[in-house]
């Protein structure tokens, strides 16, 4: 029940009021919420594009929208989802909010730079929105030259600028996290006492810092080529369009790990908290995050197997690609083993975690298919690849993101979400997701190319199934949106540690005070030490 005492306590949400106190805040927790609002907007924007795409594909003849519009839809779906939702998703919201708290810091190392990163994302997002509203962009989110530089008549420049600016948001977030983890840990918080979520975000930050600049400069060159007609990649001058693909994928493949690594971090937290056990093989999971970050930079050429890249480069990149599979497998096995002899709760976040492991397993295993040269020649640029990366990015990242949202919602807002609805939404999303994307594996192997507006009749049944699934999925995604907002006002008040979880974030009040802790924390235990927590749970009742 709501008590007066709870109301009076000062925390980061009620410490100050007014629009300025938010737009000029240096508090990482408030900035996390600003990010949350921004990326939610882009998620539903991208989702709206996806809905139109799926409706269009109900019929093979392309009757709903023109080819031009369709091409813009899938491009803008990709741009909105990848650059303005998935890449900032977990690091900028949950990471921003919890990384400092988890290591016992009062804030990130550079709070003003943190706020700047949010503004950069907003400005980049406005450029992209302008491009979308002014008429759209039709190059595909990959911007392959020479189509993007010479042939497209759409708003390539505004979109590219938007992505360029958002890239700096990502770089600065990464930089901030790395410095914070190195320099801001509380006394006693050694590297191997850090929660795995911190490890995962640290690894992610490395990628953001090392990879993003390359795509930034690639976009600059693309920009110059389109505006000033200087031809860095122009075949008419002897330039090589495949070079663009190399530079683009040098970032954009590791970018996949920017999306999935923080998700893996969330899952480690959830699996441990809801089995009440330390994560099995803590160090293996920690190091596998770093291994993924590093190895992820050695494999980009597997996007170029049929591009005209040399045979030998193809062999090298395929070989290296399989090395990334191993740390991912290690994580899945360790999570599963954590359940063994645990005390497993079926709370909503755990259901999302189960969903994540299942979908990520399928997404990861199909990754082995596309890394194999012989199969990739057939399935690349088909719906097989579309299904594969949606299993990773939607089935993986978004499941973990929602799982994390439910898990941390009480801490962030001080309110509980409605458990029954939440369980239902987890189930609906899992089923809807599989119905949407599993048929796409079949479509892909059958030979349905991606980015096709009209398609041969024989593919229709599978497309209809996929669209049916998408409508279920859409309902699934709208549900949390609604009940989260509802809970802000009507949700039950949350205690400091509603899950009986470990970690400094659960030792401070819900919502946390402005400076995160009332008393400077000192860490004396390993991560995931449940013996002391259970005592508290029993006492609180």
């Amino acid at each position, binding site marked *: 029940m709501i008590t007066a005492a709870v109301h009076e306590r000062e925390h980061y949400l009620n410490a100050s009021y007014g629009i300025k106190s938010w737009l000029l805040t240096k508090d990482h927790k408030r900035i996390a919420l600003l990010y949350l609002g921004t990326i939610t907007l882009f998620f539903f924007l991208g989702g709206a594009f996806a809905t139109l795409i799926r409706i269009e594909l109900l019929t093979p003849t392309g009757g709903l929208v023109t080819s031009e519009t369709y091409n813009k839809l899938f491009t803008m779906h990709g741009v909105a989802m990848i650059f303005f939702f998935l890449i900032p998703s977990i690091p900028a919201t949950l990471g921003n909010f919890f990384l400092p708290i988890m290591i016992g*810091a*009062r*804030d*990130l*190392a*550079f*709070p003003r*730079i943190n706020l700047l990163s949010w503004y950069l994302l907003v400005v980049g997002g406005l450029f992209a929105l302008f491009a979308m509203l002014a008429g759209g962009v039709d190059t595909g989110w990959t911007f392959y030259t020479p189509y993007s530089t010479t042939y497209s008549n759409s708003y390539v420049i505004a979109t590219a600028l938007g992505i360029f600016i958002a890239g700096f948001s990502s*770089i600065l977030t990464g*930089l*901030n996290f*790395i*410095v914070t983890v*190195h*320099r*801001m840990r509380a006394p006693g918080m050694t590297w191997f006492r850090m929660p795995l979520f911190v490890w995962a975000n640290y690894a992610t930050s490395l990628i953001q*810092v*090392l*990879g*993003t*600049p*390359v795509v*930034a*400069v*690639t976009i*600059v*060159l693309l920009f*110059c*080529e389109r505006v*000033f*007609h*200087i*031809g*860095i990649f122009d075949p*008419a*001058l*002897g*330039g*090589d369009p495949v*070079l663009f693909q*190399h*530079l683009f994928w*040098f970032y954009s493949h590791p970018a996949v790990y920017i999306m999935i690594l923080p998700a893996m971090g969330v899952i480690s937290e959830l699996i441990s908290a809801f089995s009440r056990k330390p994560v099995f093989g803590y160090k293996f999971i920690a190091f596998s995050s770093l291994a993924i970050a590093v190895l992820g930079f050695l494999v980009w050429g597997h996007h170029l197997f049929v591009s005209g890249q040399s045979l030998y480069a193809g062999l090298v990149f395929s070989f290296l690609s399989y090395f990334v599979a191993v740390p991912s497998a290690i994580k899945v096995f360790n999570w599963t083993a954590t359940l063994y002899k645990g005390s497993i709760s079926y709370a909503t976040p755990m259901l999302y975690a189960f969903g994540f492991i299942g979908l990520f397993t399928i997404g990861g295993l199909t990754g082995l298919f596309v890394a194999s040269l012989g199969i990739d020649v057939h399935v690349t640029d088909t719906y097989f690849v579309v299904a594969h990366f949606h299993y990773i990015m939607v089935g993986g990242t978004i499941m973990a993101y929602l799982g994390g949202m439910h898990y941390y919602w009480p801490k962030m807002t001080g309110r509980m979400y409605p458990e029954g609805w939440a369980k239902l939404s987890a189930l609906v999303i899992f089923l809807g997701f599989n119905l949407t994307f599993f048929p796409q594996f079949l479509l892909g192997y059958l030979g349905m190319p991606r980015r096709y507006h009209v398609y041969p009749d024989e593919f229709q049944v599978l497309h209809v199934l996929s669209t049916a699934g998408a409508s279920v999925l859409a309902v699934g995604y709208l549900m949390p949106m609604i009940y989260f907002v509802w809970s802000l006002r009507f949700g039950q008040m949350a205690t400091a540690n509603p899950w009986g979880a470990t970690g400094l974030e659960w030792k401070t009040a819900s919502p946390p005070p402005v*400076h995160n*802790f*009332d*008393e*400077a924390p000192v860490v004396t235990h390993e991560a995931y030490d449940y013996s002391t927590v259970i005592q508290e749970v029993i006492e609180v009742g």
Partner: protein
Amino acid sequence: MANHVHAETLELREQFNTAEQQKDASTLGMWIFLITEVMFFGGMFAAYTVYRRAYPEVFAVASSSLNAVLGAINTGVLLFSSFTMVMAVRAGQLGQRNMIILFLILTLFFGGVFLGVKAIEWTEKFEEHHIPGQAAFHLEGLAPDQQGHAQLFFSLYFAMTGLHALHMVVGVGLLSFLIWQAKKGTYSTTYFTPVDVGGLYWHFVDIIWIFLFPLLYLIDRHLGK
């Protein structure tokens, strides 16, 4: 309950516990930023390597059309500016406020000279029709089918020196800020991190030029003369 939050000052912002922690964090932050800059220029170096390997003769001819004397002078100017910059940092370490200001102004001056020389070079390029993407582009000494490859060289030349110059302009802004702050007496022996960190940036821009100079200006000069 002991409140662990202290009042915010320039040398000890509220998120940090000690001034040393803050200085370490700032320095590390700048180094990581410089690594992102390495990768940023790295993309262009990769493109440069690919095309120079593909069209070595054209690159040699195109490179020889650049003004090596001005390039060398500019390298020297930039090295001098790095020297004055490090002297400014040294003055910061010693707490000599006037020396900080003097050396920063000298650095600013050399930076300005570099940009001036750069502007002269670019103007020459315009007059010689060595601007890629223009119909009038023509590089003497090359066959018609090599003009495209020469344009690639000049595209890279302008992209690389242009982005380098942009970094110089940012650096000039940074120096102006530091001079202003130094005049206000912000810096002392205990707090001159901005000078230190600004210096790192300035030296980094110098290092980029150290590579740009031989790679763009000095390809097989012996062929031409």
